[in-house]
């Protein structure tokens, strides 16, 4: 088997395992990554929302925020795991697509 094929198999395994990145923190009651809190968490931590932070935090509204579909907040963890896997697939397809297009320009033809 070609090594690239093995790499793709490995990647698929990581996609299937990806919900662990959601389930393990939930199980061990770990919160956000340090420095990646939402504005509500910041208010709790600091007592107020720093002005610039409040303004800039709404600078961009991502279509699939935190690898979950909009309006799915509070759904059961199984459903969120499904969204997580789907996000991983979408993300990987986009990475591959973008690099293949970039690669047209960033490679020798020989």
């Amino acid at each position, binding site marked *: 088997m070609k090594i690239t094929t093995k790499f793709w198999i490995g990647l698929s395994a990581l996609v299937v395992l990806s919900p662990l990145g959601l389930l*393990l923190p939930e199980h061990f009651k770990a919160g956000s990554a340090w420095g990646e809190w939402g504005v509500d968490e910041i208010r709790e931590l600091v007592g107020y929302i720093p002005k*610039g932070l409040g303004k800039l935090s709404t600078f961009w509204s991502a279509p699939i925020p935190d690898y979950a579909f909009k309006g799915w907040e509070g759904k059961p963890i199984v459903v969120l795991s499904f969204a997580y896997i789907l996000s991983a697939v979408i993300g990987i397809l986009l990475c591959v697509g973008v690099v293949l297009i970039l690669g047209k320009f960033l490679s020798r033809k020989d």
Partner: protein
Amino acid sequence: MHIPDGYLGPATCGFFYLIMFPIWTAASRIVKKTFNARQVPLLAIGAAFSFVIMMLNVPIPGGTTGHAVGGVLVAILLGPWAACIAITVALVIQALLFGDGGITAIGANCFNMAFVLPFAGYYIYKAVSWNTPVNSSRKIFAAGLAGYIGINLAAFLAGVEFGLQPLLHHTASGQVLYCPYGLNVAVPVMLGEHLLIFGWVEAIVTALVIKYLQKNSPELLTQEGLNL
């Protein structure tokens, strides 16, 4: 380690975009010279690998979460310049589509994770595994060490970037405008959690894949994998 929008002030955001533009330009030039069209799929796999490994959050029970970046492994296999491009693609997609890391902080996040991490990791790996045969166990050790130091340097820099904000931006009455924590908190926390936990994930992933490739595809470890 994905700094969100709002934690870094405009000066810091602009500064890191300015640093990254020439690096991205150089990376494009060098990859264009060294890669041929058949090797592009490997670059795509590198970007996809980094993307998905960053989704695997590891918890500190009752505390925070973190993850590996996979960037040192990509750098060892494809070279640091190609790794810079692969990780940048992953980080930009994470920011734009998934809100993981800010748009305004793409320069800073790429500096930490797509520049310092792969370059430091690559040269540490090269130095420690210098002149060793392809199946030597020192290569595995070098890969683990490179992963550990690479991600910790990136975490340290993220801590410095966070921690400078209260010094750079505050109101006359002393209220902070962006990241509320100074260097005395941000640096020890960011570095500490990566030294203790997340750094080991990067180290183990990097070392295990190199060990696997020694057995299954040693040719990838001889010429930076560029002669497939």
